[in-house]
C-alpha cells in the first residue's frame, strides 16, 4: 500500500509536504463557503423549474406568487436583456449569448426537465418555495429526445429550429440536433489497415454522469443603489463569473465584483453560472441582498453533467505488435445547448500512442438534458474508455502483455498526434515503465473470478492568465495575493513556489485568494492549470520582490545592484564576504529606506505540458450478483514536478475514484419522457468508503521544460483510465468485454448470460 514519488530533481520547499495554510479553518468549521455567507436583511431565493423535458412556454403568470405575504420579487426571462438587441455582432456571438441567457431562464422553450423558468425572492426559503407553487406556467409539451443516437436520426424532435451543423466553419442548411462536426485525419487509413494483421472494431456507450461535488451551487447577490453589483459565490473562477454575468445582464464588468467564497468541490461543474445572474436580478428587483442555494435534486437536474457518448473505435496492429491504423467516431450529448467537449475527447483519444494512419470524427449533439459542463479532463474519459478497451483487446488477440504492447506503441517526444501537432517532452513511456515496475504489477493475483486490468490516459492541461502580488512584511514574512479558487490545496502549492524563490519556509508565505476588484485577471481553477500557471505567477512575483530587495540592499550599502547576491536567505555583495544581510533584517528596514516592497506578476503561459497516467486495477466479480469488487488499485502519473506530493496524490486518488464511480455505478436513469429518476445521492450512487480499497500512487516526475519547476497539471488525467482499466480487469476475471458504462451488476450478469 505504498505512495511513491520517483523524484528526479530536488528543491528546498517545492516537493515537501507542509500543512496547508487554510487547513485549520477547514477542520474547525470556520472556513466560509458560499452557502455559509449571509448579510443583514437578506432575502432567500428559489427557482421554478420546468417539469417537462421539452415544452414551449406559452405564458407565465406570477401574480399569485407576488401576492403571497413575504414574497418580495419574482423574475422571469422577461427580466433579462434580449440578447439580440444592441449587439453589433448578430451572428454566432448573438446565438451563443442567447443560449447562455436561455440556460439561466428559459424564454420561449424549456429544453430539459429542471430548466429554470422563474425565480422568487422572499423573506425566507420556505416562503419562496411556497411561492413557486403559485406561479402558473402554461406549457405546450413537445416530444423529447434524450439519447444522442436518437437525436441524430432523421425526424428526431428538433430542439433549436435555428441550429445548423457547423462543420469546421461550414454551415449546414437544414434544422438539426447535430450542432457541430469535427474531423482529424492523418496519413492514409486504408494503407494503415492493409498493413494490420489483426483488426478490432467495437462500439461503446457511456451514460450521463454528474461531477457530484458535495456542495450545491449557491450565490448571494447585492445590487446596490449606486449600481454596483457584488456577488458572493462558490465558483472555480470569480473572473469567469464576472464575465458571464456581465454578458448575460449586459452590464459593465467594472460594476460587478465577484467575491469567491470557499468552494466545496467543482471538478469543472463550477466553471459556469446558474444562480449568480439570478441573485443579481432578484436583488435589483427587491433592493435587498438575495441568496440562493440549490437542493441536491436541482444540482442533478439543472446543472452540467458530463456528456453521454456513443462511440465506435477500430484499430489495427501487426503480428509483431505495432499499431498501424486507428479510426474512431465519437458522438457526444451536449445537453440542451451546443458545446460538449467532443473536440478535446477526439484529440485525447489516441494521444498515448504513436500511430501513423488515423482518422477521428466527432459530433456535438443537443438533447433534452441539462447543458453539459466540464468534468475533469472533459471528453477524454469517454473516448479513453473506448480506445483503451480496444487496445487491450488487440494485446489479448496478439498474445502480448498489455503494458509491453502499450510501451511498444507509446507516444514519446517527437510523436505526431493524429490531430497534427508533435509532442514535446512527455512522460507517457515513463508512466508505463513505472507501472510495470510497481509492486502491484509484480504481485500475483490468484483466485476465481479475479482479473487485473491496465489502461492509460492523456489530458492536455491548459495554461491561461493568472496574476499575483507579494508584499513583504516587516518580520520577514510575505503576504501573497492571488485569484485562483482553492479547491484542493492550491494556496499551499502556489505559496510554496514563491517560498522556494525567496528562500522562505512555506509557512512564511501567507496566501490569500482575492476578489475580482483586488487582483488582476485570473482564469478558472480548472484545466489542471492552477499550480502550473498561478504558481508561475507567484514565482515571477517573488522574483520581482527579490529584484527590488536587491536594489534596496544596494542602496543601503551603496553598492551596484548587479553585484548583490541572494543565497540561502541572505543578501551579499560579490567580492565582499563581510557584507551580509538576511531577508528578515532587510524586511524590517524597508519602511525607512525607501518604502514598502510589493512584487507583482501576470502570466499567460503556454507550454503547460500534457499529463499521462497509467492505472492498474484488480477486481473480483461476483458471478451470482455481477457486483465488481475493486481489490487493489494503483495510479501512476507524470506530475512533471509534484509541488506538494500529498495533494498530488490526493488528486490522483480522488480522480481515480470518480472514474471508478463512473465506470461501475453512476448514471442518470432517464425515463423515456426525459425525467431523471435518481436525483438523490441514495439512488445516484457515488463511491463510499466501503466500495474502495486504498488507492496506491506512483508519482513520476518528467520535468516540464515549459515551467520553472517543471510542473505539469495533475488534476484531471487521473479520471481517464479507470473505466477501461476496470473493463479490462473484468474481461480477465470473467471473460466478458463490457462496452457500456456503467458496468453495473445487472449489466455484467446480462453480458455473462446469467440473466
Amino acid at each position, binding site marked *: 500500500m505504498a505512495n511513491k514519488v520517483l523524484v528526479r530533481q530536488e528543491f528546498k520547499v517545492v516537493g515537501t*509536504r507542509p*500543512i*496547508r495554510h*487554510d*487547513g*485549520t479553518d*477547514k*477542520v*474547525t*468549521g*470556520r*472556513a*466560509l*463557503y458560499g*452557502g*455559509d455567507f*449571509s448579510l443583514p436583511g437578506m432575502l432567500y431565493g428559489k427557482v421554478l423549474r420546468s417539469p417537462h423535458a421539452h415544452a414551449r412556454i406559452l405564458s407565465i403568470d406570477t401574480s399569485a406568487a407576488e401576492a403571497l405575504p413575504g414574497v418580495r420579487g419574482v423574475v422571469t426571462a422577461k427580466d433579462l436583456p434580449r440578447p439580440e438587441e444592441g449587439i453589433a455582432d448578430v451572428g454566432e456571438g448573438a446565438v451563443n449569448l442567447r443560449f447562455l441567457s436561455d440556460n439561466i431562464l428559459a424564454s420561449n422553450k424549456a429544453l430539459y426537465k429542471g430548466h429554470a423558468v422563474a425565480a422568487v425572492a422572499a423573506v425566507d426559503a*420556505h416562503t419562496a418555495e411556497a411561492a413557486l407553487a403559485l406561479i402558473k406556467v402554461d406549457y405546450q409539451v413537445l416530444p423529447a429526445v434524450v439519447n444522442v443516437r436518437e437525436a441524430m436520426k432523421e425526424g428526431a424532435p428538433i430542439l433549436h429550429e435555428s441550429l445548423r451543423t457547423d462543420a469546421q466553419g461550414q454551415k449546414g442548411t437544414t434544422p438539426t440536433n447535430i450542432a457541430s462536426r469535427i474531423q482529424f485525419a492523418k496519413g492514409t487509413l486504408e494503407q494503415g489497415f492493409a498493413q494490420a494483421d489483426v483488426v478490432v472494431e467495437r462500439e461503446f456507450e457511456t451514460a450521463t454522469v454528474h*461531477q*457530484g*461535488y*458535495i*456542495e*450545491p451551487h449557491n450565490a448571494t447577490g447585492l445590487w446596490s443603489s449606486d449600481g454596483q453589483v457584488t456577488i458572493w459565490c462558490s465558483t472555480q473562477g470569480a473572473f469567469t463569473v464576472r464575465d458571464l454575468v456581465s454578458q448575460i445582464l449586459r452590464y459593465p464588468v467594472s460594476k460587478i465584483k465577484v467575491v469567491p467564497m*470557499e*468552494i*466545496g*468541490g*467543482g*471538478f469543472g461543474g463550477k466553471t459556469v453560472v446558474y444562480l449568480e445572474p439570478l441573485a443579481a436580478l432578484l436583488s435589483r428587483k427587491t433592493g435587498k441582498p438575495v441568496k440562493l*442555494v440549490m*437542493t*441536491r435534486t436541482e444540482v442533478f437536474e439543472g446543472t452540467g453533467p458530463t456528456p453521454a457518448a456513443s462511440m465506435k473505435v477500430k484499430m489495427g496492429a501487426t503480428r509483431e505488435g505495432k499499431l498501424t491504423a486507428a479510426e474512431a467516431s465519437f458522438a457526444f450529448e451536449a445537453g440542451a445547448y451546443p458545446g460538449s467537449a467532443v473536440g478535446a475527447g477526439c484529440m485525447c483519444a489516441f494521444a498515448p500512442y504513436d500511430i501513423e494512419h488515423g482518422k477521428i470524427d466527432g459530433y456535438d449533439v443537443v438533447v433534452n438534458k441539462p447543458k453539459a459542463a466540464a468534468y475533469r479532463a472533459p471528453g477524454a474519459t469517454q473516448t479513453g474508455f473506448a480506445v483503451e478497451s480496444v487496445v487491450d483487446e488487440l494485446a489479448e488477440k496478439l498474445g502480448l502483455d498489455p503494458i509491453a504492447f502499450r510501451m511498444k506503441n507509446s507516444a514519446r517526444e517527437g510523436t505526431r498526434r493524429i490531430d497534427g501537432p508533435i509532442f514535446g517532452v512527455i512522460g507517457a513511456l515513463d508512466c508505463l515503465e513505472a507501472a510495470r515496475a510497481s509492486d502491484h504489477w509484480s504481485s500475483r493475483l490468484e483466485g476465481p473470478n479475479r482479473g487485473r486490468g491496465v489502461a492509460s490516459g492523456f489530458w492536455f492541461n491548459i495554461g491561461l492568465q493568472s496574476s499575483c502580488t507579494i508584499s513583504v512584511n516587516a518580520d520577514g514574512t510575505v503576504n501573497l495575493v492571488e485569484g485562483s479558487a482553492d*479547491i*484542493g*490545496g492550491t494556496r499551499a502549492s502556489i505559496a510554496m513556489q514563491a517560498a522556494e524563490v525567496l528562500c522562505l519556509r512555506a509557512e512564511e508565505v501567507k496566501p490569500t485568494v482575492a476578489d475580482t476588484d483586488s487582483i488582476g485577471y485570473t482564469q478558472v481553477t480548472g484545466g489542471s492549470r492552477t499550480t502550473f500557471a498561478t504558481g508561475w505567477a507567484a514565482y515571477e512575483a517573488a522574483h520581482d520582490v527579490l529584484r527590488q530587495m536587491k536594489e534596496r540592499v544596494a542602496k543601503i550599502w551603496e553598492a551596484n545592484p548587479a553585484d548583490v547576491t541572494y543565497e540561502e536567505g541572505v543578501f551579499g555583495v560579490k567580492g565582499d564576504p563581510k557584507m551580509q544581510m538576511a531577508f528578515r533584517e532587510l524586511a524590517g528596514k524597508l519602511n525607512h529606506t525607501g518604502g514598502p516592497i510589493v512584487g507583482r506578476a501576470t502570466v499567460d503561459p503556454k507550454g503547460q505540458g500534457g499529463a499521462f497516467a497509467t492505472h492498474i486495477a484488480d477486481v473480483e466479480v461476483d458471478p451470482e450478483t455481477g457486483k465488481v469488487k475493486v481489490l487493489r488499485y494503483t495510479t501512476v502519473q507524470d506530475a512533471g514536478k509534484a509541488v*506538494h506530493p*500529498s*495533494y498530488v*496524490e*490526493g*488528486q490522483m*486518488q*480522488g*480522480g*481515480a*475514484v*470518480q472514474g471508478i464511480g463512473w465506470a461501475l455505478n453512476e448514471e442518470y436513469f432517464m425515463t423515456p419522457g426525459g425525467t431523471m429518476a435518481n436525483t*438523490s*445521492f*441514495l439512488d445516484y450512487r*457515488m*463511491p*463510499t*468508503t*466501503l466500495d*474502495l480499497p*486504498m*488507492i496506491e500512487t506512483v508519482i513520476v516526475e518528467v520535468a516540464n521544460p515549459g515551467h520553472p519547476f517543471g510542473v505539469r497539471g495533475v488534476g484531471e488525467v487521473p479520471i481517464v483510465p479507470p473505466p477501461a482499466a476496470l473493463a479490462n480487469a473484468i474481461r480477465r476475471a470473467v471473460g466478458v468485454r463490457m462496452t457500456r458504462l456503467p458496468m453495473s451488476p445487472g449489466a455484467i450478469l446480462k453480458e455473462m448470460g446469467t440473466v
Partner: protein
Amino acid sequence: MATKHHVVTRVNGEEVEFLCEARHSLLEALRETLGLTGTKEGCLDGNCGACTVTLDGRLMDSCLVLAVEAHGREIQTIEGVASPQGLHPVQQAFLEEAALQCGICTPGFIVSAKALLEREPNPTEERIRWWLAGNLCRCTGYDKIVRAVVDAAARMAEVKG
C-alpha cells in the same frame, strides 16, 4: 407566519435558546438561526453526512432531525471539537495527512471519526470504512481520510499514555 416554538438546548456545552418553526430542521436552526455554519449542507436528505452532529452523543444527520427535537438535548457540532488548548487529534491528523481537499465534507467526517474513536480507540481499516460509509467525499477517494483516522487513533492512544 407559522407559529414558532421555543427550544432550549445545549450546543457544544453551552445553553442556548432559539425560536423555530415546526418544519425547520436542526441543520437549518444551527446554520441559519445560531450562525453555526461549520455544519455543512450537501443533500438535505440524509445521504451525504456533511451535516453530521451528535445529539446526546449519538451521530445524526442534522438535516433529518427537526429543530424542535433538540429541546432539552445536548448537541455537539464541529465548532465544539477543538478546545482553547488547540486542535483535537482527529483535526490535527486530517491536517497532517492532507485528508481534505475542498473541505466541505471535512466537518462531517471529523465529527463522525471522533465519535468512532471515543467508542473504539483502535479500529481496523475495515471498521473505519464501515463507520464512515455514511459520509460522502467526492474529492479524496477516502484513502487519506482513512489514514488520518488511523493516525488520530495513534495520537489519542499516546495522549492517554
